[in-house]
């Protein structure tokens, strides 16, 4: 600036608008100066020395973002966060307004999602993959790798089987059932040291309507159809929901959470993360609930990987059985009696026996044959993904997608699923992304360097 001023005929004038800062110390403004020539043309602007802003935008400092967005808005309502922030800064008047805070959180979350998108594209390209996540050569796909990921030894599986067999005998299961279950010994049981467990799930929150009004309200609530309305229309109307996809990647006491706008988007991030951590040669085990579209997406997306498999979460198997049998059978006692038998068979991986059991339920117990057929169809469809949960439990291998359910609660549900709350889809996804940054312990690198390291975080 001094060098510019040395030229003759130049003068320093105050910039028309003040520079505005929203910081951890509070909101403040200060004047900046421009250098103009004889024709009143600006030859140097002092604002170029400061971070660029647009219009009346406030520059938000690192401290503000950490305090207000990552530690504030992800934990409690925007109203409470704004009140807390302005109280903390002793700026009850002239502090950060609620709407500004919400817009800032949405913009920050969108920036996180854009970073994940761009970083994934970069990593996929670096490792010889297309933008869509397909390997461009055999080498990229790891097909040329000579060694298979380790599995548990036959002795160890045999030992675990003996315990399972003992339990089956105690439960007075038939010899043929025990023989059927024994076939599960031949399945591959992964060595946890060479396995990546990937839990994927969708989490939805109530979507906000763009406009309020009686028509919209009744539609949103899915109740009170107008008098002339067809009753079936009422059933079809559902409250619109905003969806987030969450993936939790875990291996040997380490974990990482990824969130995104769609299943395919998140699967791309997962692949990029795996490649970045050089886990291509390991076994990838996906845990999901029975959501068909999710399973299909995973299987299709990772079809090229030789050591990928999927396990249907045990909790959801039990839940599905309970729900469908409640619809299918007459009364709680009958349902519980059959439910116990069916879940026992499924626990040992006896899918065919479970289907046969369903077919042989006495007609006198049945209320809805269609529900029974639906449950049988569910078993058939998921046959490949139902292992011997008993044997896996005996081998101390995971059977549950619980890690992602817990993560869903931490990144979305605990903040966004509360009475009377509804969200725009970008707003919900942005807040989920910010919560994941905090959960991964990457708040500081993100705020200061605008980077999220694709690296595991120690969990135990």
């Amino acid at each position: 600036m001094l060098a510019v001023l040395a030229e003759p005929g130049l003068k320093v004038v105050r910039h028309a608008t003040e520079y505005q800062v929203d910081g951890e110390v509070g909101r403040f403004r200060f004047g900046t100066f421009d250098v103009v020539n004889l024709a009143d043309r600006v030859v140097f602007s002092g604002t170029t020395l400061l971070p660029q802003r647009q219009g009346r935008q406030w520059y938000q400092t690192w401290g503000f973002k950490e305090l207000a967005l990552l530690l504030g808005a992800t934990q409690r309502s925007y109203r409470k966060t704004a009140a807390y922030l302005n109280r903390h800064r002793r700026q009850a008047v002239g502090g950060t307004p609620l709407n500004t805070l919400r817009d800032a959180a949405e913009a920050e979350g969108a920036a996180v999602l854009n970073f994940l998108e761009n970083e994934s594209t970069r990593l996929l390209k670096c490792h010889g993959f297309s933008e869509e996540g397909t390997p461009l050569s055999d080498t990229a796909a790891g097909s040329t790798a000579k060694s298979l990921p380790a599995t548990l030894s036959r002795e160890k599986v045999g030992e675990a089987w003996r315990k399972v067999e003992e339990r089956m005998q105690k439960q007075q299961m038939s010899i043929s059932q025990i023989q059927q279950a024994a076939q599960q010994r031949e399945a591959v049981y992964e060595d946890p040291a060479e396995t990546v467990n990937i839990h994927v799930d969708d989490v939805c929150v109530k979507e906000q309507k763009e406009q309020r009004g009686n028509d919209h309200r009744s539609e949103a609530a899915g109740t009170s159809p107008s008098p002339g309305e067809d009753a079936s229309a009422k059933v079809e109307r559902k409250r619109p929901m905003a969806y987030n996809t969450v993936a939790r990647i875990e291996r040997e006491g380490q974990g990482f959470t990824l969130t995104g706008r769609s299943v395919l988007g998140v699967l791309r991030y997962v692949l990029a993360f795996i490649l970045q951590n050089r886990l291509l040669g390991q076994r990838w085990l996906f845990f999901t609930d029975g959501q068909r579209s999710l399973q299909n997406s995973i299987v299709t997306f990772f079809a090229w990987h030789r050591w990928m498999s999927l396990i249907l979460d045990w909790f959801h198997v039990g839940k599905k059985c309970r729900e469908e049998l409640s619809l299918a059978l007459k009364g709680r006692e009958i349902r519980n009696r059959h439910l116990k038998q069916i879940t026992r068979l499924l626990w040992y991986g006896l899918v065919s026996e479970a289907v046969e059991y369903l077919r042989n339920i006495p007609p006198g117990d049945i209320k809805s044959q269609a529900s029974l057929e639906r449950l049988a169809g569910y078993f058939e469809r998921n046959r490949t993904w139902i292992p011997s949960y008993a044997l896996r439990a005996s081998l101390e291998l995971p059977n549950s997608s619980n890690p992602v359910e817990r993560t869903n609660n931490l990144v979305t549900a605990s903040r966004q699923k509360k009475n009377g709350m509804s969200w725009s889809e970008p707003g919900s996804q942005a807040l989920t992304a910010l919560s994941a940054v905090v959960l991964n312990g990457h708040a500081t690198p993100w705020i200061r360097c605008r980077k999220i390291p694709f690296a595991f975080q120690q969990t135990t």
Partner: protein
Amino acid sequence: MGSCSIEVSIKVNMKPTQGPGVRPKAGVQQIGPGYFQIVLDGEKCLDIDALEDGLLQASFPALRDGLARHLELEVKKSRADASCAS
């Protein structure tokens, strides 16, 4: 009883470095009773984030120290007054 006045002054100065390659000491230093100092790299003189962080880092120890010093002094004074009265 008189009024209680609180005075705060914050100075942000640009100073020449002590020599080529000499880095400022990291963190806040107490340079006297109630006086705290943090020295940042020269290139941070227009870095809003670093300046705000530095100010907060130096201010909070100064606030704690100032409050503690005042209370200690006042307690000592009132004890002395009480013992004189008795």
